[in-house]
């Protein structure tokens, strides 16, 4: 006899890959114009025009001494700038107000934490899950993600200035992409780092950004908006070793045994005639 479903049968939380909810001021400016080096003067101009908030001013200390002054913003300002770039001004305006809301609500714990810790340590803060989820909910409610191409995933290789990301589009299609590691300003990501990859058109070209993300345990109801953005094997195209090897063998068969036709040989002969193929002499030994 099937037993009735007990409320505790439901998972208490579900892991989601969510973008880091706070970014520094340079990232806000680069989201607005990736081709222009960020300057404090440009930031002040934007602030005078109310295009961005005053942000969170943090005086950092190290070993009890002053160690500099930093300005951080809600990541929603970055999304707002990207959306203005693709002409989605209404959604951007909604995000501006959501960004101010995030900064207002989490100002005190953020300043307290960032005064003694690096931004990259933010996922260790006790209030981080609430902050990340609140920010992600605002992002979802604004409709921003429908106007951008977003991949949520994990870095599976990071070699030779290239990173390979296994993940999923927000349309639930699996994706396996290779990107230049330099896309991230703070340095190439490491294997197993969670990331979001965002692409948008700018003047007929595609601008692709690699955003730091983090795995956050959220309640199942809230997680439903991000069911495409889940960590682990669900997003990786590897389920079992046998599946992987079957696919690997099939792919290798296509690569190693191509159907080479006359036009391919014609091209090679042209390259030979043009001197584009180097020679090597092979000495046959007994």
């Amino acid at each position, binding site marked *: 006899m099937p037993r009735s479903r007990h409320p505790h049968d439901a998972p208490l939380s579900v892991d989601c890959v969510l973008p880091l909810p706070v970014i520094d001021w340079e990232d806000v400016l680069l989201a607005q114009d990736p081709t222009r080096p960020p300057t404090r003067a440009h930031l002040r101009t934007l602030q005078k025009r109310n295009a961005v908030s005053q942000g969170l001013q943090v005086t950092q200390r190290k070993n009890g001494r002053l160690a500099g002054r930093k300005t951080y913003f809600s990541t929603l300002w970055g999304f707002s700038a990207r959306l203005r770039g693709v002409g989605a001004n209404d959604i951007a305006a909604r995000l501006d107000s959501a960004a101010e809301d995030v900064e207002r609500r989490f100002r005190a714990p953020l300043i307290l934490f960032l005064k003694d810790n690096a931004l990259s340590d933010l996922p260790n803060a006790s209030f981080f899950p609430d902050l990340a989820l609140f920010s992600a909910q605002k992002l979802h409610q604004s409709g921003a993600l429908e106007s951008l191409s977003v991949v949520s995933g*994990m870095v599976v290789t990071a070699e030779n200035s290239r990173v390979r990301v296994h993940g999923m589009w927000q349309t639930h299609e699996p994706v396996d992409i290779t990107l230049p590691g330099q896309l991230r300003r703070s340095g190439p990501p490491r294997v197993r780092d969670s990331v979001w990859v965002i692409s948008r058109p700018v003047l007929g070209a595609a601008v692709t950004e690699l955003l730091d993300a983090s795995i956050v345990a959220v309640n199942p109801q809230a997680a439903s908006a991000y069911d495409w953005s889940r960590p682990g094997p669900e997003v990786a195209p590897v389920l079992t070793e046998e599946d992987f090897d079957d696919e690997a*063998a099939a792919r290798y068969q296509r690569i190693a045994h191509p159907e080479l036709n006359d036009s391919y040989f014609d091209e090679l*002969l042209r390259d030979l005639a043009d001197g584009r193929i180097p*020679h090597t*002499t092979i000495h046959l030994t007994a």
Partner: protein
Amino acid sequence: MVFDWRDAHTSDRSVRQSFECTVDFERTALGRPLFHPRPYEREVQTHIRRAALPSSANGRLRLGFAGGELAAVVQINLEGTRDGYSFVRLQVVAIARQFRGLRGEAADEAMHEALVQSVVLGPAGASEGTVVSALIDVVNEPSRRMLQRHKFALRDTIDGQLEEWVVLAVR
């Protein structure tokens, strides 16, 4: 480093099936495969373990042994002949894990074996030389360096994922 090279036989299947030229999967805490850090190496390993023996007229599957241990595998295939040239595709140049990292010595010997076999495999009519081509993954830096050491030139990039390298081998 000198390997003892010979053609693969059907009786080598068990030796090939234990050949390892890549690292293991990254796994979850419960041991479930999560992802493979170098999928292009795993593809080659799987191919070596499963490949049928090529026909002697068009292909070679060569095994290199060191101290009785399978240290390297080379596979080539004759794709065609035109205008005095033969066209050979390098399908496998693989070095067992324990023989890697010796400043590429093992890889260089395997590549030399591949080029020698490519030249030998060309029919008598291919008097101009043998065009040898290889496809590698774009992130496969060790293979790129090996091909460069043997004078291969990058000819094409396919779908942003694979690179085609070519060289004309002459006797």
